[in-house]
């Protein structure tokens, strides 16, 4: 209620609005400048690293470097052909183990475990335990996954230093990442899709498989591609589970050497620092390529779903 209409209509002249506005605009400009600087700094550092690695690395990259296998020994002679193939094998194996497990866990937690909310009992406790474990696992340093893999897969299960040991350990490493990204993706699927589908007389699984998973697919793919990047970039885990053989792995129980591991070994045990940089350059290009792939797929899906 306005008691005094005259007073409320009176213009308050105590504030010099023009001066105020100038001061506010100035502080906005300063804030913008600082934010811009911070952004520029981050981008500049990143570009500098990429430039350093790629420009130095490209000196050794040629077709021969890519197609011959490392010679071994302290000279660091030879190329990186087998490490590229081993990396590819390991990525496929790790994702083949981790993706079904991770996606399945996330589906269970988002789509099935909700029915338990509010109830007390064994299953509710189990779901809470899974959720907490995933959060903790996501923050565990990778060397600990490596030691775990070494103790369980390499020693106890007698899988030795092998692709299989490394793939299982790598799966443990990326599992939390896949679970979390899939969970996020499923949670963003509108409840109205679930209701709309169930109201047509579909079973819960039909709804999950045909409506929810396709809608969550971009997010799930992003999680998987991030995991691929994680496997490609990882050294600590594979250092203690994959061994370091520079030969091409013959089967799942063969030892091997990924590109990242090769970089580490070249830099720490040989004189071929230039070849370490060359391998790194190729690694960086692959990671950039993967990120582009994420962008393109998510844009593609966005277009398809929004119908624009």
């Amino acid at each position, binding site marked *: 209620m306005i008691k005094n209409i005259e007073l409320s209509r009176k213009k308050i002249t105590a504030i010099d609005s023009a001066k105020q506005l100038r001061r506010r605009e100035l502080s906005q400009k300063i804030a913008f400048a600082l934010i811009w600087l911070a952004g520029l700094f981050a981008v500049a550092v990143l570009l500098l690293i990429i430039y350093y690695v790629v420009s130095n690395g490209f000196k050794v990259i040629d077709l021969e470097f890519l197609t011959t296998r490392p010679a071994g020994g302290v000279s660091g002679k030879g190329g990186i052909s087998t490490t590229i193939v081993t990396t590819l094998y390991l990525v496929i194996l790790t994702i083949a183990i981790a993706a079904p497990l991770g996606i399945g866990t996330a589906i269970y937690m988002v789509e099935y475990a909700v029915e338990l909310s509010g109830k007390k009992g064994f299953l509710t406790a189990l779901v809470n335990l899974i959720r907490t474990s995933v959060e903790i696992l996501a923050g565990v340093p990778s060397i600990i996954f490596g030691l775990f893999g070494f103790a369980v897969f390499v020693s106890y299960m007698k899988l030795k230093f092998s692709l299989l040991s490394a793939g299982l350990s790598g799966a443990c490493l990326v599992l939390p990442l896949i679970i979390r990204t899939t969970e996020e993706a499923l949670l963003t699927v509108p409840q109205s*899709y679930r*209701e709309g589908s169930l109201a047509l007389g579909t079973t819960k699984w039909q709804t999950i498989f*045909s409506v929810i998973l396709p809608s969550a697919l971009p997010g799930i793919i992003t999680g998987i591609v991030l995991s691929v990047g994680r496997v490609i970039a990882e050294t600590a885990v594979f250092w203690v589970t994959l061994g370091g053989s520079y030969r091409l792995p013959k089967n799942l129980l063969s030892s091997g050497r990924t590109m990242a591991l090769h970089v580490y070994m070249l830099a720490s045990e040989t004189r071929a620092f230039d070849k370490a940089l060359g391998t790194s350059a190729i690694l960086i290009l692959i990671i950039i390529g993967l990120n582009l792939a994420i962008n393109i797929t998510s844009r593609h899906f966005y277009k398809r779903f*929004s*119908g624009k």
Partner: protein
Amino acid sequence: MTEKINENGKTKIRVEDFNLFYGKFQALQHITIEIPGNRITSIIGPSGCGKSTFIRSFNRMNELIPGVRTEGRILLDDKNIFDIDPVELRKQVGMVFQRPNPFPKTIFENIAFGPRAHGIRDRRILEEIVEKSLKQAVLWDEVKDNLNKSGLALSGGQQQRLCIARALAVEPEVILMDEPASALDPIATLKIEELIQQLKEKYTIVIVTHNMQQAARASDYTLFFNMAENRAGYLVESGKTTDIFTNPKNELTEQYISGRFG
């Protein structure tokens, strides 16, 4: 005490002393009513009186919410729906929601989704169903050349008709509509109302509406719900729409339809 609101038609849904609880909170109390077949029955009442909860009981959609408990019976063609598997029940009792919710699929796939889930694989049969459903939903002429476009690319009114077509495609007997036009503009609303009139020849329609003109225009029978002291929804009055709107027996109904509360 069963309230007869239908003199000659056949009863499609019979609700007997139905109570619904969200945990300890009672949302619906002692509802007993018969809903006639091949007619449009509208449910009106102030916000929070349990209209949506009531129709979501007919296809057991409330069971998706943890902690829901019901008492009493709802009979669909003399069969208690709580004895029918909810998946089977929802095939017979379709639903259209307040906000259009097409799937992020093509128009064709949106409609073929239901029949396909029920086991129809033959592409030719699916094409027939899609065409028939879209025609029934008066959307065919607008989209027949663009069946591979995303359902989300349609306008709001078209999306809602797509959702109606999607519900029709599984050939239900009853269609529940939860304020189907509340998110639409007046012209799209009018189209939906015309469509509902055509659908009653083949289907039993129960529609929740906030809009009293809509109930008066578009329905044959009207149920008026209100909130009791304990905030539970109950049925105040039911009858032919013309009677309810011109000659309400209950004082509350009269106050509500004349806009004095709600």
